[in-house]
């Protein structure tokens, strides 16, 4: 069994801190890659060593596979943890690590490749008996699209096979809009992914996003750790996540988790992964959306309800060890909610607000309140990367207690110097639709924000009130 005594963290921000902490717990030295603006970052200070890999621009630092592999080898590491984003789902990077003799903390390159191509993933799901959203094969021509449209029905969604983050995606209400939407989606997909291939899926209105966390040992054994509900989204970006889902019952939960395990087992999955589903609350049906082959931002809600350390488990699996618990030992307790605190201005269309944090005063943490962050008073949020400042996670015996506890924690969280999404979260949490679990993935865009900003000053006033 290959032992890991030094691990290379090929990421930054809160997830780099999270990985360093997991290494501490496992008695492993952590070497953190830093760009020039991240030289003094919290992960760099907490790690055994920081290695400067390049200038601030991610394209010249955190996205440089060759440099990261050279840095991992040069600093004497045996394994590479890619975190999320950046190179975490690039099969080429995983392959380069393995070719260089480094253990990649993630799935085999072939699994990343198979799941990265959305239609290939759908086919694997079908083989595993996991239902997909009613949809087409690849669309080659406008005639294909029209045939698929007639077959599937409107409204429908156009998607890019190389897709992600909503790019190359179009909602089409009627056949007359199809040709134009296909054209613009294809060019957007070509620009974003270098691949204009599209397919079509039925649009499920008022859908929820529910996903299942799985762990595979790479030898055919897979366990699930229950589901997360990430329906509070803005433009396909998750903002609030919770576990368990308030929208599904035990019967659906059981079927969904079983489906996720079958899918992961189908590819002899190794490491942590997430199988995402669209859930139609009216029909009480779920459909496979895609599989994410990395640790996810929202993994802490699962950790809070299961009491398992997913990042430590990832590292153990990479070292060739078996999963440290059985399916029977996975127990879901209580309810957890996570709010993503971003340096964005909700009153100005969520415009990113990098800059110097003057006061950083998070609520007191204990085993029921957790803050995952790389920020501190005096930290400068660089403009080069994403705007995630912290993840605030609470755990309580049930959902209403968790909402109460989250509201209190948000109220106690004091940040000055940069504008944050805390006021937005406080408003969502006090909204009846959220409290009644009556929201869907377009609720923030279509209902919540329009109501907030009937007048711009009204929105500012509401968000200021929430801030006060």
């Amino acid at each position, binding site marked *: 069994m290959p032992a890991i005594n030094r691990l290379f963290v090929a990421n930054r921000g809160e997830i780099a801190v999270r990985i360093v902490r997991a290494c501490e717990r496992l008695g492993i030295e952590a070497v953190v890659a830093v760009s*020039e603006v991240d030289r003094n970052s919290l992960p760099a200070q907490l790690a055994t060593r920081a*290695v*400067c890999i390049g200038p601030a621009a991610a394209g010249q630092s955190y996205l440089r596979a060759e440099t990261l592999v*050279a840095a991992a080898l040069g600093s004497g590491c045996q394994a590479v943890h890619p975190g999320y984003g950046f190179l975490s789902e690039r099969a080429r990077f995983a392959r380069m690590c393995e070719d260089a003799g480094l253990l990649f903390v993630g799935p085999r390159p072939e699994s990343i490749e198979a799941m990265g191509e959305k239609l290939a993933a759908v086919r694997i799901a079908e083989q595993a008996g996991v239902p997909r959203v009613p949809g087409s094969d690849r669309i080659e021509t406008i005639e294909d699209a029209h045939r698929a449209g007639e077959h599937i029905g409107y409204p429908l969604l156009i998607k890019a096979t190389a897709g992600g983050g909503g790019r190359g995606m179009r909602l089409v209400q009627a056949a007359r809009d199809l040709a134009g939407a296909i054209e613009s989606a294809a060019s957007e997909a070509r620009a974003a992914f270098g691949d204009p291939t599209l397919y079509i899926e039925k649009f499920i209105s008022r859908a929820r996003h529910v996903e299942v966390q799985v762990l595979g040992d790479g030898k055919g054994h897979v366990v699930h750790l229950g589901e997360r509900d990430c329906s509070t989204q803005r433009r396909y970006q998750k903002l609030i996540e919770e576990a368990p889902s308030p929208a599904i019952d035990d019967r659906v939960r059981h079927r969904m988790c079983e489906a996720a395990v079958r899918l992961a087992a189908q590819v002899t999955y190794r490491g942590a992964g997430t199988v995402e589903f669209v859930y139609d609350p009216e029909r009480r049906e779920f459909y496979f959306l895609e599989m994410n082959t990395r640790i996810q931002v929202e993994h802490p809600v699962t950790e809070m309800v299961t009491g398992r350390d997913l990042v430590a488990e990832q590292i153990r699996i990479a070292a060739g060890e078996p999963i440290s618990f059985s399916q029977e030992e996975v127990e879901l307790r209580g309810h957890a909610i996570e709010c993503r605190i971003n340096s964005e201005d909700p009153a100005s*269309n969520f415009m990113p607000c990098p800059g*110097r944090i003057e006061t950083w005063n998070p609520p007191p943490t204990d085993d029921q309140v957790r803050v995952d962050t790389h920020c501190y008073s005096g*930290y400068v949020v660089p403009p080069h990367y994403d705007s995630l400042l912290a993840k605030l996670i609470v755990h309580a015996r049930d959902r209403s207690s968790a909402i109460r506890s989250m509201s209190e924690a948000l109220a106690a969280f004091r940040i000055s*110097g940069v504008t944050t999404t805390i006021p937005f979260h406080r408003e969502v949490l006090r909204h009846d639709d959220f409290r009644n679990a009556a929201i869907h993935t377009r609720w923030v865009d279509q209902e919540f924000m329009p109501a907030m900003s009937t007048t711009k000053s009204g929105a500012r006033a509401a968000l200021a009130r929430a801030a006060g």
Partner: protein
Amino acid sequence: MELSHEDVKKILEIVDASEHLHEVELVYGGFRLHVRRGAAGVTALADDRAAFAPAAKPAVAVGAPPSSAKLAPEPALAEGEVAIRAPMLGTFYRSPSPGDPPFVEIGKRVQADDTVCVIEVMKLFSSIKAGVDGVVMRILVENGIMVEFNQMLIVIATSQ
């Protein structure tokens, strides 16, 4: 690249016309233009490190960072000395291939265009030039060691 008065005026007009824009930072090569709405005005900074200099008001020390940064102190330079820095992370080699004599030794006179070392990233070798005319004073890195981005490699005393 130099920004002309006309360019700056145009940028200011764009900032002025856009409702949501509070701050603009333009970086082009070594040149940096920083425009902020309101009292702060326009500053053009040649040095990157000054861009996010601490605000006048000191930060409140709550949730302060751990104090020990993992940075090796950089060797000080005497007057007239210039450090050649690594333009990329990689393995530092003093000679073109094993067994060959080193590109430079201490005391050697070099010209700006002379290669002083190579850096290898996954079998890709980049020649590093002196960049200035002068004499090699110190070689700060051992052969075959990984160097980080922007790390000091060789100190040259410039000849004016």
